[in-house]
């Protein structure tokens, strides 16, 4: 087994152990971080590896959240079909948005994805009789049971978050190591050259965006089912910015960048909130500082200086 797999599997084992060892408060935080990290890891596949800077990922996250939450609320679906439906909804939404948005590139792509996400967020508010609008809704307790485990309790919730994150991390690691993973990087580095090598950029980027959407959808569904709430604010622009921030912080184009960035930002905001309630300022300042002084993020720095083969 290579050093790379040893590092990633070792980290997963350590995370699982942490769920049993940490006090409840930090275990819940860590569960939340892992769910957000699923979202961020998927975002990183599109942004970090393929160079698709989307400002609309909240739409895929919210699609997953509502595809899991609405059937639970209206028809009493359980958690397992909810997770499947949420993941697929995120992917389907990304496919639809990608079909149109990928006809553009660069700044236009950012604005088109932003606009789609904005329209989706407004649609959630518009159909508030059915979606709960801005106030959202609480997921019924009966639906928060996964294979007999009650997701309202700390340990099952932690293990579920860990299981989903682990699956996502391993899949991402396998993907970026595969032939298609190199196609993704080639598209980021030089799309024209990739085209000359016989790669269809549109099809490849669409595939990446759908995969990224599946991650976002799974993250959204898990967030709703594990923490028991779905609401319109999760579709807002802020939830498109957060994964970007996590990835920039942890390292764009690194498999572990998502969870590292999510963890650091989560605890930074948590620390800051004991001093002041101005946490948005922290988010803004972090974005500016990162883009000015550390555009490669922490693991990008590690890769440049210490470990060239870090995926």
């Amino acid at each position: 087994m290579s050093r790379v797999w040893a590092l990633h599997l070792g980290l997963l084992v350590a995370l699982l152990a942490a769920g049993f060892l940490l006090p409840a408060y930090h275990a819940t935080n860590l569960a939340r971080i892992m769910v957000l990290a699923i979202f961020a890891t998927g975002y990183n596949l599109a942004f970090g590896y393929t160079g698709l800077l989307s400002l609309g990922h909240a739409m895929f996250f919210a699609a997953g959240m509502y595809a899991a939450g609405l059937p639970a609320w209206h028809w009493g679906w359980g958690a397992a079909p909810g997770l499947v439906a949420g993941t697929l909804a995120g992917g389907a939404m990304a496919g639809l948005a990608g079909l149109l948005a990928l006809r553009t590139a660069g700044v236009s792509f950012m604005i088109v994805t932003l606009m789609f996400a904005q329209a989706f967020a407004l649609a959630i508010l518009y159909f508030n009789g059915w979606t709960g609008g801005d106030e959202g809704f609480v997921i019924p307790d009966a639906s928060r049971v996964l294979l007999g485990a009650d997701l309202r309790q700390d340990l099952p919730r932690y293990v579920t978050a860990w299981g989903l994150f682990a699956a996502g991390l391993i899949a991402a690691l396998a993907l970026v190591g595969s032939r298609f993973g190199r196609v993704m990087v080639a598209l980021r580095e030089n799309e024209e050259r990739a085209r000359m090598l016989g790669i269809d950029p549109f099809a490849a980027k669409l595939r990446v965006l759908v995969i990224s959407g599946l991650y976002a959808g799974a993250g959204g569904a898990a967030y709703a089912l594990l923490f028991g709430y779905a609401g319109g604010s999760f579709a807002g622009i802020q939830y498109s910015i957060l994964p970007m921030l996590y990835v920039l912080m942890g390292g764009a184009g690194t498999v572990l960048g998502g969870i590292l960035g999510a963890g650091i930002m989560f605890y930074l905001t948590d620390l800051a909130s004991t001093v002041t309630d101005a946490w948005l300022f922290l988010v803004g300042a972090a974005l500016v500082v990162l883009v000015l002084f550390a555009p490669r993020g922490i693991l990008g720095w590690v890769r440049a200086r210490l470990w060239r083969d870090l995926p």
Partner: protein
Amino acid sequence: MSFGPFLLLALMEGLVTAAVLSLAAVGLSLVFGVMRVVNVAHGEFFMLGAVIAWFVAGLVPGPAWVGFLAALAIAPVLVGALAAAADGLILKRLNYDPEATIVATIGLLYMIQQAALTFYGPDARPVPAPFEWRIQLPWFGYSGYKLFVVAAAVAVLLAVWRLMTHTRAGLVMRATQVDREVARAFGIDVDRVYMGTFALGAALAAVAAVLVVPISQAHYLMGGDPLLLSFIVVIIGGLGSLRGTVIAALVIGLSDGVISMFFSPTLAKILATLLVAMVLVFRPQGLFGART
């Protein structure tokens, strides 16, 4: 009220929206045209203009119009200065890389918004209109101040147009827009042009906000809608085209007024957002822009 006057009212409301919108959008368009920077913090410059207007109106004694005029003079200068500082400290260091500047201006957006929340507070606060005067139409009375807003916006837009076409500063800006390297070769200080353009764009947003604040109210989250609508207007009008921007502001403002009056404001926004996404996908040069 029957349908006709109702439509007239909707159109008049739409005209006011269009006037304010065209000012904010021309600021955004100018910055994009000359600097190729998409300024996501533009809505927050708008909000700052309104908040500063509230502070100034509270500090200046005397009748309402004195405070209003003071705000109209002070707010754009302060906001422009802040924008110039942001340009020198952040955007310039990023070499105006399009994607990095978007991320940086998102950061700026959050910082300004939080600063307003901390120092100004979460409440919406009114600023008194400089004059109370109602026009009595046969079917309804209408605020004369709103018509003043339209007139003032037209005046400012004419001034901007004149600046761009008939002054040396405008010539230098247009030269930089066409080719930054050649402009530099001709001895134009491109850094100063960029700083000035960014400040001017922000100041225009602030003017729009000072004009609108007696109608709506000053609130720390008020930057979101103008940002979204300005984006829509600038994109539909063709990025960087001033004439297209003004025409698009009229179209969007009027249709927004009519759709909001007869249907729902949320539906109007959904339709406009989807429209703009489609325009970018299928006609990236904008509906009124020429294909280059």
